[in-house]
């Protein structure tokens, strides 16, 4: 296992050693020191509303159950029977009184406390474990569920820091703040390191190249319809065209990174350029609903926030403005899976959610024109990093020109700065050297 001094040598201000993407020993250490310590995004409260509601997910490589223990309290439990190690639950989601292990019937209450052990006379009762191992820290920020496998560490609000504003945007856009996960889950996988996805989601220099083919075909597509005359294809065409924005647009975008390695991109696109453009009857009805609850001024402020991706390091990337959230599950040094969720604003016009679904298909769909090219490139990068002939990968775009802002935030000199990758690796090194 790499000593801490060696780790420091792998991550330099403007370059990183290929082994951080390719060495299985470093991957194991990442699972222990990064995914074992950081707050991880697990999901949303709408996935476990009522007592007994649960869903299964992963924290890094650990299988977990997220369960509504009581009306007030969520528990996150390691999904592994304390008896012989079987996954206690594989259903994905549901509602239970008890979790019953399929192997010998050991059963646990909603908080994971061991209740029933068949053939109990064979055991020394005092030596039986208390129950499923509980993940020590669970917290919720504005409906989003987080947990940490570490007993101690910074609190959630400190961890999120200025990135809280992206979650605020997500919730504030929903009339009455009511969001729910809906519309199915994409689970896309690639033969590449987990970090590659997080490094791509704020990369304004890649669309012109990676997405050249989808930009080209979208430019040749029929024109999207005006307000009230939308076609089904408009959202896909608009979104693919947007990836072909001129260099000057990408350079002008705001890009900010936070001390814990989170980052977000602003000013990329307004609703007007995309989903149910402003002026469309549906969007106007939505705006009215928002204004009815909050007043026209506040509604206007909310709708002027234009955030593209926000990356929450190390396991999440989301789009508050377009209600998409991806949770990253590293599988191996060269294999990763991202689960993508869409959110419905419960009190918005029904068409708003249909637009979200169409948007999800083109941006996060496993068969998308766009995402498939990203996945292809991740795999090519992984193959390249397998080569020992060249040691370093560069993360130096805009290096030396990052601007310091309050609360430890750094802003890239341009929208194509790699400031966010440098911030991710600064966080990487801190977690890995602790």
């Amino acid at each position: 296992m790499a000593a801490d001094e060696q780790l420091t040598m792998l991550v330099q201000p403007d370059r990183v050693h290929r082994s951080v993407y390719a060495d299985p020993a470093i991957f194991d250490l990442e699972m222990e020191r990064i995914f074992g310590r950081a707050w991880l995004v697990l999901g949303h409260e709408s996935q476990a509303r009522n007592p007994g509601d649960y869903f299964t997910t992963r924290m890094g490589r650990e299988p977990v159950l997220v369960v509504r223990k009581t009306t007030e309290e969520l528990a996150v439990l390691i999904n592994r029977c304390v008896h012989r190690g079987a996954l206690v639950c594989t259903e994905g989601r549901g509602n239970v009184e008890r979790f019953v292990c399929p192997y010998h019937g050991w059963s646990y209450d909603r908080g994971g406390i061991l209740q029933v052990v068949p053939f109990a006379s064979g055991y020394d009762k005092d030596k039986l474990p208390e129950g499923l191992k509980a993940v020590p820290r669970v917290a919720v920020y504005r409906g989003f569920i987080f947990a940490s496998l570490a007993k101690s560490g910074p609190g959630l609000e400190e961890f999120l820091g200025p990135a809280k504003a992206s979650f605020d945007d997500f919730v504030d856009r929903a009339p009455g703040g009511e969001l729910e996960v809906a519309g199915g889950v994409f689970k896309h996988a690639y033969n590449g390191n987990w970090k590659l996805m997080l490094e791509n989601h704020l990369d304004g220099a890649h669309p012109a190249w990676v997405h050249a083919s989808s930009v080209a075909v979208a430019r040749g597509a029929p024109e999207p319809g005006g307000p009230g005359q939308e076609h089904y294809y408009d959202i896909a065409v608009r979104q693919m065209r947007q990836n072909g924005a001129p260099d000057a647009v990408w350079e002008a975008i705001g890009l900010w990174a936070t001390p814990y390695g989170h980052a977000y991109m602003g000013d990329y696109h307004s609703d007007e350029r995309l989903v149910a453009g402003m002026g469309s009857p549906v969007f106007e009805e939505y705006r009215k609903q928002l204004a009815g609850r909050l007043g026209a001024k506040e509604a206007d402020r909310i709708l002027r926030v234009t955030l593209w991706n926000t990356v929450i390091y190390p396991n999440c990337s989301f789009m508050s403005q377009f209600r998409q959230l991806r949770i990253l599950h590293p599988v191996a040094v060269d294999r990763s899976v991202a689960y993508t969720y869409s959110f419905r604003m419960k009190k918005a016009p029904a068409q708003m959610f249909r637009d979200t679904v169409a948007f999800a298909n083109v941006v996060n769909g496993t068969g998308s024109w766009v995402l498939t090219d990203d996945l292809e490139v991740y795999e090519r990068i992984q193959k390249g990093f397998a080569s020992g002939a060249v040691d370093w990968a560069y993360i130096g775009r805009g290096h030396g020109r990052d601007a310091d802002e309050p609360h430890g935030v750094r802003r890239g000199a341009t929208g194509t700065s790699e400031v966010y990758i440098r911030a991710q690796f600064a966080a990487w090194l801190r977690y890995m050297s602790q």
Partner: protein
Amino acid sequence: MNGKQFRVEQFLYHEARLLDTQQLEAWLELFTEDATYWLPLEQGQKDALETSSLVHDDRTLLALRVRQARHPRAHARQPLARTVHQVGNVMVLSESSSEVRVASTLQLVEFRSERQRLWAALVEHRLQRTGETFKIAHKRVDLANSEGELDGIAILF
């Protein structure tokens, strides 16, 4: 009865052969102007507007998919994967004077970048009669692993 079954089967084989010989533009021409091509995400999915889909294309989007496959910088598509579509269990489900609804099964082998993938699906076509042959008004492909963790899908089914 036999004549109809034969014509439907021959049409589905023809469709598969166009894909397997990479005649994508000719394949696109099999679809009506208001056709839909659908790979649902969920088992038994009823609706493509309220739930996401692996692919849900109207004719405009399907045309973009075919055009993208020919683009020199379509990284996930150039070179095109080689495929073999094995169509089976062809059954006419219902018919009217203008349309035939057909169920079939599909096994598909895909090869690209030193990797072979095997797909299996339940397929449903809604075919419009045009003279002695058909046009596809709707094609639904329910992959057996649609809800699984899937690498990118860049082929046509």
